[in-house]
C-alpha cells in the first residue's frame, strides 16, 4: 500500500468529508480520504430484491449494533434513551439517510442572544447562505421557492409531489392558519447531472437504487474520484498522530484491508466521522501532550451530545393515503412552532414533519426506527386492513439543547473488530424537550383532526423513538473561546493548528431540522476559509 505523505488527509467519506474534499479540489493539493467502509454499487442495493424489506432488519439496518458488519463499530447504548444510527461505506450515512433537507433558520445561530440558552455560533445564517445554495446545486435539491419561514432562496429543482397525504394535511394546516410548506429534499424531481429523477419507491433508507437521492456516493464522489482525489476504502483510522514537540498532527495510524496497521503522513488532517465517531477518534488519540484525548484541552470533546428527540402521531382517514408511495422523509413541513413563544412552557421549538406510512412489514414491526410491533391476532387483522392503508402521520422533531451530561465517552471493554475502543453514549431527554414533545403531540393531534382524521393514534407517554439518533451533534463544538469549545469559527482545532473537524460534532446548537444540509454548508464554508487563509493556515 502506497503511504506517501499527502497534503490533506480526510477521515470519513460521508456528507462532510466529501463536501470539503470538493471545496479543496481547486487548490490542487494532494487529497487522500480514508473510509472504514466499502464502496457499494447501487445495483447491490436491497430495493432491487424481492424481499427488500428484510434488509431493513439486517445488513441495511440503520443501527450498527444490528448490522454488526466488519466496518461497523459497536456503540454502547445502555445509558441512552436514543440509539445512534449511521452507515459505514463510501457515502457514509447519506447511503441510508432520507434526504430531508431543511436549512437551519437564522435564529438557530443565536439561541443565547435571543433566548438566553445554549451558546451563539461563531457563524450565522448569512455567512452560510452562499454555501447552502452551492451545496443545494451539488446535491440536486428539490423544493418550492418562497417559503416565508426563511430568507428568500430558490431550490434548484421543483418540489417532489406532496401526494394525497401532503395535500390532505396541507388543507388541515390552512384551516388552522398554521405555517406549512413542501419540504426541501435532496432528491431529484427531474433528471439532472446524469442522475435519474425519483421514482417514488419509498425505500430511501435502502440506498436509493435509482440514484435520485443526493447521497454523496451519487453526487460528490464520482466527481472527486474523477478529479484525482484518492479514496482508500476499508481503512479504519486507529489514532491521529501528533508531533510531541511541535504539537502538530503528523498523520494517522490506520487498519488497512490487508489486516495490517499502516502509518499515513499528512500536512493537514480533517476529521469527518460524525458526532459519535469524531469524539471517539479524538478520545482514542491520547499522547503525552493530550492525555485526555486529542484537541481536548477544553474538556469538551464528547460533551453536549445533541439528537433530535422524536415522537409521532397518526391519523386514520376515510380514503387510502398511499403513504408508501414517494420519498420516505417528508412531504410537507410545518414550522409554526419553531421559534420561542413566551406563552409556552419551553424555549426554542419544534417542527411538524409529515411522515409517510412505509411498507407493510415495517409498519407491522412498529414503524421506521421503532421496535414495538403492532398486536397479533384479531387486532392485527383489523389494524392492517382498516388502519394501515388510511394513515397519515406527523412527526414532532424537537430542538435538543446542549447539556454536558449528554456525552460520548470510550467504553472500557467494548471494541470494534480491530480492537479499537468503542464509544459509549450517555443520553437523557431534557425537561425542556419533554415539554416540547407534549406540546407537539397535542398540536399534531389537533392538526390531524382538522385535516379530517376520523381516529387519532398516539402513544400518550414520554418515550421517544429509540432508533432516532440520526442527527449526532455538538460533541466537538465550535466557538471563539478555547475554554468552552473544541474548534474555532472555521473548524480548526484550538489546540492543534493543522487539525480540522467538519461534521455535525461542531454544531453549537441543534435547531429542529435535519442537519445534513447545514453540515455540508459548514464543510464548504470551512473549505473556503482554508483557501482564504492558505498563506498563514497554521499560524
Amino acid at each position, binding site marked *: 500500500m502506497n503511504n506517501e505523505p499527502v497534503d490533506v488527509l480526510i477521515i470519513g467519506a460521508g456528507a462532510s468529508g466529501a463536501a470539503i474534499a470538493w471545496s479543496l479540489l481547486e487548490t490542487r493539493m494532494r487529497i487522500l480520504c480514508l473510509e472504514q467502509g466499502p464502496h457499494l454499487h447501487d445495483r447491490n442495493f436491497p430495493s432491487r430484491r424481492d424481499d427488500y424489506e428484510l434488509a431493513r432488519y439486517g445488513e441495511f439496518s440503520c443501527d450498527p449494533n444490528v448490522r454488526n458488519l466488519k466496518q461497523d463499530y459497536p456503540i454502547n447504548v445502555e445509558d441512552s434513551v436514543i440509539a445512534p444510527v449511521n452507515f459505514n461505506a463510501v457515502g457514509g450515512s447519506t447511503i441510508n439517510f432520507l434526504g430531508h433537507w431543511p436549512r437551519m433558520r437564522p435564529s438557530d445561530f443565536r439561541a443565547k*442572544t435571543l433566548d438566553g440558552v445554549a451558546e451563539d455560533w461563531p457563524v450565522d445564517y448569512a455567512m452560510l447562505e452562499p454555501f447552502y445554495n452551492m451545496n443545494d446545486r451539488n446535491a440536486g435539491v428539490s423544493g418550492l421557492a418562497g417559503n416565508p419561514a426563511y430568507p428568500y432562496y430558490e431550490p434548484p429543482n421543483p418540489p417532489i409531489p406532496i401526494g394525497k397525504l401532503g395535500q390532505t394535511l396541507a388543507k388541515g394546516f390552512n384551516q388552522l392558519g398554521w405555517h406549512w410548506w413542501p419540504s426541501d429534499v435532496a432528491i431529484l424531481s427531474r433528471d439532472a447531472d446524469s442522475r435519474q429523477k425519483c421514482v*417514488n*419507491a419509498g425505500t430511501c433508507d435502502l440506498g436509493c437504487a435509482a440514484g435520485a437521492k443526493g447521497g454523496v456516493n451519487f453526487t460528490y464522489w464520482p466527481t472527486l474520484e474523477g478529479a484525482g482525489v484518492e479514496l482508500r476504502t476499508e481503512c479504519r483510522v486507529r489514532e491521529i498522530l501528533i508531533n510531541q514537540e511541535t504539537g502538530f498532527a503528523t498523520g494517522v495510524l490506520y487498519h488497512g484491508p490487508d489486516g495490517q496497521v499502516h502509518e499515513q503522513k499528512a500536512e493537514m488532517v480533517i476529521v469527518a466521522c460524525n458526532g459519535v465517531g469524531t469524539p471517539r477518534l479524538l478520545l482514542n488519540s491520547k499522547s503525552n501532550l493530550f492525555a485526555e484525548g486529542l484537541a481536548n484541552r477544553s474538556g469538551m470533546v464528547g460533551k453536549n451530545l445533541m439528537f433530535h428527540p422524536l415522537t409521532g402521531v397518526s391519523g386514520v382517514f376515510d380514503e387510502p393515503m398511499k403513504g408508501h408511495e414517494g420519498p420516505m422523509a417528508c412531504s410537507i413541513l410545518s414550522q409554526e412552532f419553531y421559534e420561542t413563544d413566551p406563552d409556552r412552557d419551553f424555549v426554542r421549538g419544534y417542527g411538524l414533519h409529515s411522515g409517510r406510512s412505509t411498507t407493510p412489514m415495517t409498519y407491522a414491526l412498529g414503524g421506521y426506527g421503532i421496535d414495538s410491533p403492532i398486536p397479533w*391476532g384479531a387486532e392485527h387483522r383489523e389494524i392492517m386492513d382498516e388502519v394501515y392503508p388510511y394513515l397519515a402521520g406527523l412527526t414532532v422533531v424537537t430542538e435538543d439543547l446542549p447539556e454536558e451530561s449528554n456525552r460520548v465517552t470510550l467504553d472500557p471493554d467494548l471494541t470494534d473488530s480491530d480492537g479499537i475502543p468503542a464509544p459509549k453514549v450517555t443520553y437523557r431527554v431534557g425537561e425542556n424537550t419533554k415539554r416540547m414533545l407534549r406540546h407537539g403531540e397535542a398540536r399534531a393531534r389537533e392538526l390531524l383532526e382538522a385535516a379530517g382524521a376520523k381516529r387519532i393514534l398516539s402513544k400518550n407517554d414520554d418515550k421517544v423513538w429509540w432508533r432516532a439518533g440520526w442527527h449526532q451533534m455538538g460533541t466537538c463544538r465550535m466557538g471563539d473561546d478555547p475554554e468552552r469549545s473544541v474548534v474555532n469559527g472555521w473548524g480548526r482545532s484550538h489546540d492543534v493548528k493543522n487539525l480540522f473537524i467538519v461534521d455535525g460534532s461542531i454544531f453549537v446548537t441543534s435547531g429542529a431540522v435535519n442537519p445534513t444540509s447545514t453540515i455540508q454548508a459548514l464543510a464548504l464554508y470551512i473549505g473556503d476559509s482554508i483557501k482564504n487563509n492558505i498563506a498563514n493556515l497554521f499560524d
Partner: protein
Amino acid sequence: MLTDSERKSLDGLLDQIIPPNADNSIPGAGQLGTADFVIDKTAKDPEFAAALRKGLRLAGDDAGKFEAALPEIFAALQRYTYMGYYSRSDTRPLFGVSARPIHPSGYDVAAEPEDLMKKLTAPVVARGRCYRET
C-alpha cells in the same frame, strides 16, 4: 427440522398471529406457509429452535398459551412471522404495495400542477414572514 405434528401446530399458531380476513381473500400466516421462514430462522439459531419446540410442546397451536408460557420466545416468533409474511411478493399487493422489487420502476405519482400548489400555499404566503431577524 420440525416433526409433522410440530409443523402442523406451528401453522395453526401462525394463523392465530396473523389470521385470515373474514372472506379468506387475505390468507393467514400459517395458510401462506410462513412457517418455512420461521423454520429457516431455527436452522440458524439452535437456541431459538429448542425454545420453539418447547413452546409447541407446551402450548400446541394455542398462541395465547404460548405467549404466557414463553413471552420472549413468542415475541421473537411474532417478529419472524411478520417478517416472513409481509416480505412475500404475493402478500404485498393485498395491502396496495407492489409485488415486484420496488426498483427500478417505483410508483407513478403525479406532480401537483403549479396552480394547485399556488392555491394551497396562498394562505401561508399571505401570512407573511415567520422567522426572526437576528
